[in-house]
């Protein structure tokens, strides 16, 4: 294979040829579907409703046709020895000690599990530290957490990590006072403060982990290609415990590479950005990619929720390429633990993607970015469209009593005249949906040993397909709902992702999934009464809807997920041999001394936690008397009436004042116990017992003391 020296040396005719091939395949397959559909519909003349159905059929069929096209070209690329035009192929051989451009590795966090975040960060810090060029990398935890306990734990974890690894001056922690504009605002705030100090920005999510080698290679590839603005990696989903997580992690390894390679095949330097596990050239990012306001009436309407696609588009407009380093390993993230969390994320993405509509027609947007935006829009818009299509088809069938559309969907040979065409259309649709899965399995087979062996890999593929079929109607229901809610103007904010607890209890499942269950039952009843044949053909959808409660519960089960792992099903290579970058991420956190408000307890009592927190706050030079009185009142209420007497906003106000925090620490040690709220008396007892137990444990570990029954409390101080 000929070398690919630099990204700006990409021949224009290669880009044109590939995009022509891609579009020709996608449009050609869509045209086939449309022709078959027209043949079915015109058998006894078009009704106005059928024109409407045909208009709806085009984008629906187009979406699966283009999905297939991406996977098909991806498969062709992968089995033919890989793509010549991959950005990572431009990497020259360099001395390991040669410093790349200065890089800031940032982790924007919002009420995430601090222990897990900092363990991942520690692994990355150690990994990059193995190379002498690792000095070019600084790490930033950019916190927007508004949970006081989480905030305190983040600071303590940061301090402990820096002390443990002598990383002060290399790992930084910044807490933002005003969490404006969510994650994109958090990143923009970093750019304003320190953006000028660095050449590149490596952005990660709280659950992302990237090996030092990958970070270094990304920085070097940016050095080699000054015309590249963003390089996006394809993070591998790992550490799947629940069934859903295992399903996603397996799918990203079987069909994922096909879609990734196929995407790179057609867009090359006009790729997309996913918001994390990517490296960005900071100068053009700060100058040209500042998010514009959307046309809208309120400030909330004008704010862009899904910033990544827009930033990729702006970077491309600024004349920089955006590449997808899809074969680059060492880039990891975790999947949502259960269906509810996955849907919550989809709710945000749905609103964000629909906002991108504005950029679809904006002058200056590159062709490839318009395609990305269009695909992003259609990912959600096709759901209500499909629901409408099915509904109108049923209506058409019922009134015409000929079930033409049904046969178009099902290939029902009983329908007069058009049975064969319908069967062809059905076969084509099924092929477009399932051939990528088969190609994925074929691609996986030569490496089947890493996936539990050939037999197990095939069973895993079948299981993944089966579960996808069951999950698809549930997604259809919720995506439809999300689109309607978004169009009605119901907003969502930047919510914390629950990455820990996976199990969905029965009451929670009923509360969340009664809608699809009821919809499935209702449609089944209606169709069984009026159009029984339709009920049979809709059965895959109806079964999925009716089983949504048990499916949501089962896929959230860690026990079932671990059973699958033991059976070596839905296995991924990282489970056979865990890379060092993923080690120790599962270490259990010490049990909390008291919940809730454990952070407040430590902040008030522990001189260490109090000092860390106060030292990280900017001290106000102006001391307004009324503010001092207000803070004194908050402290009094906190100690005398207990933490529950204060609203979260009030606790945060107190926590933002260094002087108030120090006074709180003094007061709690000075006050008579009888004047403290019972919550504090209990909390202090736990704290002191843990402190004593810790001391005795240390002596015991040294073999000098045998703790007796009198030793109270087995817990350990988190700090």
């Amino acid at each position, binding site marked *: 294979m000929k070398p690919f020296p630099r990204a700006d040396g990409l021949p224009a005719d290669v880009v044109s040829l590939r995009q022509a091939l891609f579009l020709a395949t996608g449009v050609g397959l869509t045209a086939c579907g449309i022709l078959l559909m027209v043949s079915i519909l015109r058998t006894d003349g078009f*009704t*106005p*409703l059928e024109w409407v159905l045909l208009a709806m059929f085009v984008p629906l069929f187009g979406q699966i046709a283009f999905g297939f096209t991406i996977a098909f070209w991806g498969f062709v690329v992968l089995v033919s020895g890989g793509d010549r035009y991959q950005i990572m192929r431009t990497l020259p051989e360099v001395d390991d000690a040669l410093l790349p451009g200065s890089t800031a590795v940032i982790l924007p966090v919002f009420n995430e599990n601090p222990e897990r975040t900092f363990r991942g960060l520690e692994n990355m810090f150690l990994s990059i530290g193995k190379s002498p060029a690792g000095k070019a990398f*600084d790490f*930033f935890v950019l916190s927007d957490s508004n949970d006081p306990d989480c905030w305190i734990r983040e600071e303590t974890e940061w*301090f*402990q990590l*820096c*002390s*443990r690894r002598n990383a*002060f*001056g290399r790992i*930084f*922690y*910044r807490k933002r006072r005003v969490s404006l504009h969510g994650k994109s605002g958090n990143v*923009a705030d970093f*750019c*304003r*403060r*320190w*953006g*000028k*100090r660095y050449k590149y920005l490596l952005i990660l999510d709280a659950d992302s982990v990237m090996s030092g080698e990958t970070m270094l290679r990304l920085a070097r590839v940016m050095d080699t290609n000054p015309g590249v603005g963003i390089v996006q990696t394809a993070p591998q989903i790992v550490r799947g415990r629940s069934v859903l997580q295992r399903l996603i992690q397996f799918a990203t390894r079987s069909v994922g590479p096909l879609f990734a390679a196929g995407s790179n095949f057609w867009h090359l330097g006009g790729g997309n950005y996913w918001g994390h596990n990517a490296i960005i050239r900071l100068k053009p990012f*700060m100058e040209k990619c*500042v*998010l*514009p*306001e959307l*046309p809208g*009436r309120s400030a909330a309407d004008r704010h862009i929720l899904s910033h990544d696609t827009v930033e990729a588009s702006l970077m491309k407009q600024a004349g920089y390429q955006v590449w997808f380093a899809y074969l680059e390993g060492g880039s990891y993230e975790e999947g949502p633990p259960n269906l509810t969390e996955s849907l919550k994320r989809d709710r945000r993405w749905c609103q964000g993607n629909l906002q991108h*509509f*504005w*950029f679809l*027609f*904006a*002058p*200056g947007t590159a062709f490839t970015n318009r395609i990305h935006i269009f695909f992003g829009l259609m990912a959600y818009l096709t759901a209500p469209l499909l629901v409408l299509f099915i509904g109108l088809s049923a209506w058409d069938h019922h009134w015409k009593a000929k079930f033409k559309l049904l046969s178009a969907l099902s290939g029902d040979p009983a329908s007069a005249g058009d049975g064969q065409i319908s069967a062809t259309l059905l076969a084509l649709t099924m092929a477009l949906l399932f051939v990528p899965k088969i190609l994925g399995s074929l691609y996986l087979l030569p490496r089947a040993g890493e996936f539990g062996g050939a037999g197990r890999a095939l069973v895993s593929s079948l299981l993944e397909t089966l579960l996808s079929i069951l999950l698809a109607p549930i997604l259809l229901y919720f995506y439809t709902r999300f689109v309607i809610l978004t169009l009605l103007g119901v907003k969502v904010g930047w919510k914390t992702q629950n990455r820990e607890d996976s199990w969905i209890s029965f009451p929670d499942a009923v509360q969340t999934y009664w809608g699809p269950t009821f919809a499935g039952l209702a449609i089944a009843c209606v169709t069984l009464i009026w159009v029984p044949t339709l009920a049979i053909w809709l059965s895959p959808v109806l079964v999925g809807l009716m089983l949504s409660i048990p499916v949501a519960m089962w896929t959230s089960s860690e026990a079932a997920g671990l059973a699958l792992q033991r059976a070596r099903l839905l296995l991924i290579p990282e489970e056979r041999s865990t890379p060092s970058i993923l080690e120790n991420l599962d270490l259990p956190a010490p049990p909390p001394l008291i919940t809730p408000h454990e952070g407040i307890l430590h902040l008030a*009592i*522990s*001189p*260490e936690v109090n*000092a*860390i927190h*106060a*030292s*990280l706050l900017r001290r106000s030079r102006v001391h307004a008397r009324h503010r001092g009185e207000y803070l004194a009142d908050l402290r009094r209420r906190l100690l005398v009436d207990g933490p529950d007497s204060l609203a979260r906003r009030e606790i945060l106000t107190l926590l933002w004042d*260094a002087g108030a925090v120090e006074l709180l620490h*003094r007061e709690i*040690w*000075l006050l*008579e*116990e009888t004047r403290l709220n019972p919550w504090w008396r209990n909390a*202090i007892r736990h*704290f*002191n017992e843990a*402190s*004593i137990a810790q*001391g005795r444990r*240390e002596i015991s570990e040294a073999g000098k003391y045998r703790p007796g029954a009198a030793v109270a409390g087995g817990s350990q101080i988190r700090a």
Partner: protein
Amino acid sequence: MEKIDWDAACLRLEDYLRAHGVEPRERLLSLTLEMLREARSLHAQNPSMSPLETTMGLAIGKTDAWFSALAEKPEHSARTRVAFFSPPIQMKWASAFLLPSPPAELLSNVRSIVIEAGPALDFQSVVRKEMDYGAMKDIARETWDQFSWSHVLRAFALWVVLFFVAYGVYLKFFS
């Protein structure tokens, strides 16, 4: 009653010292006794304060003074306090807490730790630019300027009527 008050003060003082990492029993007890003696004499001078307030006021005052002495400059006092709690220093020097003359090695270690939440600020203006959204924005603005749900409902009703009329015409004349 006073005995219980002094017991409470003693326990609180022990907890306070232990929270500062003073774990060796011998050091803990000697510091406690030393401070209690001092607190008793202070309490005798000012009996209006409870034994606990007197003892803990004394302990906190001594702690503040000790950390100030540990810092190179007074403004570094807070930072020094944090540095003292870093695990390597705690492991080696926790017992040195409140020693009238801290060991030179502790001083140099504590002062060498630079705790930075971030590098020096180097502000960059990140200015939002106007985006040209093309004709769609104008269409949308015109729509929103005159938008009301009654308009939407009326338009929807009109289209429903039109649809059924067209469908009726089709059934009547073309079906």
